[in-house]
């Protein structure tokens, strides 16, 4: 089985998958790509590009296995875990459900907000002109290109980031080190989206001692350090590309 992981700078979903890869022990050929240049849309050797073209996550990492493009960072992390050491997901069904629900809250509410705020702060003027197959993802590229960041969405996004940090703070209230008790892929997924928000939404982290300490613990994991060592910039947490869309139903 040939496995190639195309990833952006170690931030957001790329960081989550790189950390999960290191924890899993699975061997994959890691190849950095420039997400803002649109290199993700011109990957060579794909026999099935459906998930690359239409993934809900937007500009995240792509794991190519025997020509099939695999996307969505949580599900790639699950695949790597299940193909390797199997340490990143609870075995007990209810605990597994709790982890999946946590990841859904992060990917559906926090991730669109973080990608929106990250692109607003750091990505304008840096975008290439790739041929994006998904019309709605292409529209999000255009919004970033135009600098079209409506104030109501800025306010809403800041609220979602704040709620995510609050959720982390509350989850750690019983003194646990990791979000689900044992270390899981939820820690990496959550860290990936929140690490860059400390600069953009500092009020969300103010006084959140448990959440801030947890960020430090995740960052210190050898798997996260290995992911960060792949950065080609000194500030990977400022690397953002168009992400998931903000819920159409509000």
């Amino acid at each position, binding site marked *: 089985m040939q496995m190639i992981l195309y990833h952006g700078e170690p931030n957001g979903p790329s960081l989550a998958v790189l950390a999960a890869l290191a924890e899993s022990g699975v061997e994959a050929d890691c190849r950095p790509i420039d997400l803002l240049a649109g290199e993700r849309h011109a990957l060579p050797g794909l026999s099935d590009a459906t998930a690359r073209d239409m993934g809900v996550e937007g500009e995240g990492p792509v794991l190519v296995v025997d020509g099939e493009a*695999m996307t969505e960072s949580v*599900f790639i992390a699950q695949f790597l875990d299940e193909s390797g050491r199997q340490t990143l997901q609870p075995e007990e069904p209810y605990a597994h459900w709790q982890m999946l629900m946590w990841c859904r809250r992060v990917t559906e509410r926090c991730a669109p907000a973080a990608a929106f705020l990250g692109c607003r702060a750091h990505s304008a003027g840096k975008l290439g002109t790739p041929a994006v197959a998904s019309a709605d993802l292409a529209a999000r590229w255009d919004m970033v290109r135009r600098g079209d960041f409506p104030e109501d969405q800025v306010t809403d996004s800041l609220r979602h980031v704040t709620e995510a940090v609050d959720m982390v703070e509350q989850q750690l209230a019983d003194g646990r080190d990791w979000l689900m008790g044992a270390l899981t892929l939820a820690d990496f997924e959550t860290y990936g989206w929140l690490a860059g928000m400390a600069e953009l939404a500092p009020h969300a982290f103010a006084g959140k001692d448990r959440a801030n300490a947890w960020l430090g613990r995740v960052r210190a994991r050898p798997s996260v350090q290995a992911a960060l060592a792949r950065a080609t910039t000194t500030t990977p947490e400022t690397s953002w590309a168009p992400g998931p869309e903000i819920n159409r*139903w509000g």
Partner: protein
Amino acid sequence: MADVTLYHWEPNANSGKPMLALMEKGVAFDSHYIDMLNFDQHRPEYLAINPQGTIPAMTHRGPWGTRVLVESTAIMEYVNEQFAGPDLMPADARDRWRIRWWMKFMDQWLAPSFSMFGWKFFVGPNALKAHGQDKIEAQIARIPLPERQTAWRKAVFGLFSEAEMAESGRRIGVGIQMLEAELGKREWLASDQYSLADVNGFNLAYAMPLSQPHLANDEVTPNIMRWLRAIYRRPATRECWKLGRTPMASRVEILEQDYIPPRDESEGIASGVR
């Protein structure tokens, strides 16, 4: 009294997913019908179980006490892992990834578009007919969160913008083409065995030949029609649909037809099931 209780609406969309998964696994459960259009989900007795007021919800009693589970796709994964019975997730990790990918794509990208059309042309008008505008307004006014009131008002009274409807229509067209192409690759949606992706997809797509007769029929989407009929023939599906209480449940009977020809888009609108 069973250890499992499922709080659900019609065997359709999100409610239908855990209903069919439980039926496929052969898990005995108490069915607790929540009349969504009578706003049962905002009543104190239901909020005591699921404070979010979303449907479906499932409770599971055991040595641990009572667990409360929400979110239809996540409930299905729990049901599959917790109970004996046919495994609805394959052993191969890449197949499981594909199942999860398709469920997320359907849940977050495609289903909201179907939902917008469903509310505009079917659920909303039926709710108004059954309960009247004044009663519905009064029910919506009792919902605690203002943004939820806005969302419900928009849904029941069909207050979607032209741009929103056009975008949903575009996604429905693209999504149907994607499903057709994927079902041309293998017998089932995301793997070579019947899985949670098929349970999820059926609950999203079963009414397409009625609601989108120009896009889903035996001429232009033969793979989708083969797949829908195969799921409809399963005993669990038949049992599941017996739990429906409104005319919505009868829509699935279109799959008893051996051949469904293409029809004009307007016939989908006229059928009142879009």
